[in-house]
């Protein structure tokens, strides 16, 4: 079970969070075209190593967090609130 160090709430169990997907993909612009949207919605890398993900603290402060996690060891080494509000990073 992962423990995620929420910048608002402190270290909390994975069970309090909802996984919201890969945070390395960039949302296309409105006129990017169907191909770009298809990539964004359906194509994912499957990295062996460090990746960045969205986790919503659904049973906590409801913040959307950007979490850097290692897919092999499950180590989490950085957590930040999405939107980059100042003073909320925990590295």
């Amino acid at each position, binding site marked *: 079970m*992962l*423990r995620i160090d929420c910048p608002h709430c402190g270290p909390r*169990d994975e069970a309090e969070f909802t996984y919201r997907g890969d945070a390395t993909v960039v949302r296309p612009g*409105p006129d990017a075209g169907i191909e770009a*949207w298809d990539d964004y*919605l359906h194509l994912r890398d499957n990295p062996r190593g460090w990746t960045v993900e969205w986790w*919503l603290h659904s049973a906590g402060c409801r913040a*959307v967090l950007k979490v850097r996690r290692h897919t092999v060891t499950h180590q989490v080494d950085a957590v930040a609130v*999405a*939107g980059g509000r100042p003073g909320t990073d925990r590295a």
Partner: protein
Amino acid sequence: MSQSRRLAAGGHVDRARSLSFRFDGRSLEGHPGDTLASALLANGVRLVGRSFKYHRPRGIFSAGVEEPNALVELREGARREPNTRATVVELFDGLVAASQNHRGSLAFDWMAVNGLLAPWLGAGFYYKTFMWPAAFWERVYEPLIRRAAGLGRASGLPDPDHYGTMHAHCDVLVVGSGAAGLAAARAAGATGARVILAEQDFMLGGDLLNEPGLEDWRREQLAALAAMPELRLLPRTTVFGFYDHGVLGAAERVADHLPEPPPHAPRQRFWTIRAKEVVLATGGHERLVAFPGNDRPGVMLAGAARTYARRHGVRAGDAVVLFATHDAAYDAAFAIAEAGAAISAIVDPREDSAAMQRARDAGFDVRARSVVSDTTGRAGIHAIEVRARDGAGRGVALPADLLMISGGWNPAVHLASMSGAPLAWNEELQSFLPGAPVQRERSAGACRGVNGHAAAAADGADAGRAAAIAAGFAGAEAFAAPAAPAPDHRPWPLFEVKGGKAFVDIQDDVTADDIRLAHREGFSHVEHAKRYTTHAMGTDQGKTGGIVGAAVLAEARDENLEKVGLPRFRPYTSPVAWGTMAGDGVGAHFQPTRRSPLQAVHDALGATWMDAGLWKRPAWYPKAGDANLWASIRREARAVRERVGICDVSTLGKIAVEGPDAATFLDRVYSNTFSTLPVGRARYGLMLRDDGLVFDDGTTSRIAEHRFFVTTTTAQAGPVMQHLEFHLATAWPELDVSLASVTDQWAAIAIAGPRARAVVAAIVDGLDVSNEAFPFMAVADCRVAGAPARLFRISFSGELAFEIAMPAGFAAHVWAAAMAAGAAHGIEPYGLEALGLLRIEKGHVAGPELNGQTTAHDLGLGRMLKKKGDFIGRAMALRPGLVDPSRPRLVGLRGVDPGRPFRAGAHLVAPGGGPSQGWVTSMTPARISSRRAAGRARAGSPA
């Protein structure tokens, strides 16, 4: 012959008290401190079960969790638990156990015929034999296999006991209470750290319990630990898994040692332990040697025979042979000789050693460069066969009723491996040791190859102190390690004596030949060989023979054991009952129940309840005189169509969307436009997902310039809230908008029907609800029956309708006022079924249509996709597949034969057959007007 093999003194059993128990109907006696296995041995019981596949007779093989054979059905009736290891069951007065996996009696099992069929029952037998004909699988083969396979029988009755759940945090978790574990806990505890010491046994001490000379040291440590206020001892607690980020799972057997749990106590407790640092002091498991007949009753691990003699005061045999490959096993010979047994011989493949010399000095017949090559005896061995290590064929027969075997010791690396640490081969011990930690854990004592109580205690103390310091504590306390000699655990690398049926996995009836067969047939990876042969599966997970099977595979592959490796260790280290995992999350507590603030009102009206997700909602309100439920539903719907009805719609999701950019935000998340919505008006909105399919619908009202009140469907309230939060945070963090779920804060009541206005007018204060002043889609804050409220002129039924939202605490008051005002108009409450009927007749969509597979066009809502401006799902809604004109579309359906109602899910075909033209998505048999169902059908099809 009561307890004929019990010693007069010694060990950790209380001979002053007797406990009676029954095994296969026989009444027997044991003492407190016994396990079921030790008590059976004390009574001379040797045959305790039949094997999984060949139904071979089996006896007690070990003295712990690694037991492959002595699996019993424990207790009776609803508490009957199959596949319980007699070696870990704590004896209690009145215990009832039965052997399992035999047809007929244990001594004469009809299924033993499988043993004669053994040549055809090798590895992969099922896969090869039950192939043809395919139709036979379900009707013939599977029922046959199911009857023949498996071990014990589940009770089939509801579990009468309950189970607890605990969450704990600690600075240092110590797993295991042998010399290393006790020292680790003491050293860590001395720093003031919060320590949990978990031990799976009911007595603390591990192998110290087999050492009378170290009893004082054990007691001294226990007394020191008991005096530490921040130290928690958890006996009878198996740490079964090491998960990510320092989280470990454990099962505590709170009341398994009692006939039944005391009132209000759980039977077992599931612990989730979050530890800053972990010290693993899990000891080791002795391993078997594969040789022909190594599974017969009377063959026992040497360490187990030693435990029965020293800890339980039981002599497991009278004429004993020790077959060992290392010096440490020799203590078993001395222990059983002290217990009064005669040592027939000691068989050792080595040339010579210190222990062999000591044994000769003691007068034992030591046969060097020799191996055991067979055993004889049906329900228990009476002789063994010894031959030269490098020889072949038959050897010399020696009488024996107990054959103690030891092929070495495997450090119990399960938890270290689960934590992510690699395993490192150790040539001296011919086994794997834990490698460099990945998580914050360290191993101490025998589980990392440090053997002997003195060395293990010193190692444990170091580990405990280091763990406490790593957790932020300081300070130390000096205490003495026990004075004990260091036994030599380095084995001669003997894993198999070739010949006949030599078992590498006694529980699963896997022989060395099966492993070789797997290799010949291409299943040469250790993980493939495991699955092909079932080696190292079952309750023991190959604790005694896992590495032996891997060694046989290594030889077959002509590679070394280090390269072949072991199958991956995964939870659980020992079986855990389903009830323990479920904890208290069963029955009504399986998931939370959400109740409307009007629950009591509906109960008073006699509502029939139905589940809507987690919510309980009134389905209909039966009345005397209703012929059946459909009569009730039709009566309620007719009241709405002809007079006025009242309905609880509190379960709809409600979200407050506020801030200077609220309108901009809503324009982006809805397919239609909200920035043009005037204050005081509501609008029906459609939400798409990014992939262009419909996500949810609902009405959204503008309460003030920057304040909106969004409603969602009941089912999607949570997902919509997350969807809004996620996009606000990640796609448009620049928007100044705040979101709050207010579903539970607001109750809501719909009042619908031609006379709805008269009812609403009578209870609303200071608001003109005439059509001119308060038209369709009007919204206003007001007071209703004196309570603060928000009035909406919206309709889900197609009739004139209002919805009144109010703070949840006022709901019952407002409902009562509406019922009183509506009495003269014939008001009737209506439930979810009537609501469904009314919306189907009206053509409104709901869950069955908003199923995540439909587009706005499919639902006839294509006009709601705005032409100007972006919104979630716009780009992908234009995908060719989603704008294909031949996609099935929402249509209304009416049956031609009123006597034959539709079924939801039924497909529509032309008279006489042909391909499906579409299907029914929602139906109601209780027609009021013309429409009876909604469905999706291909464009142009007759529907």
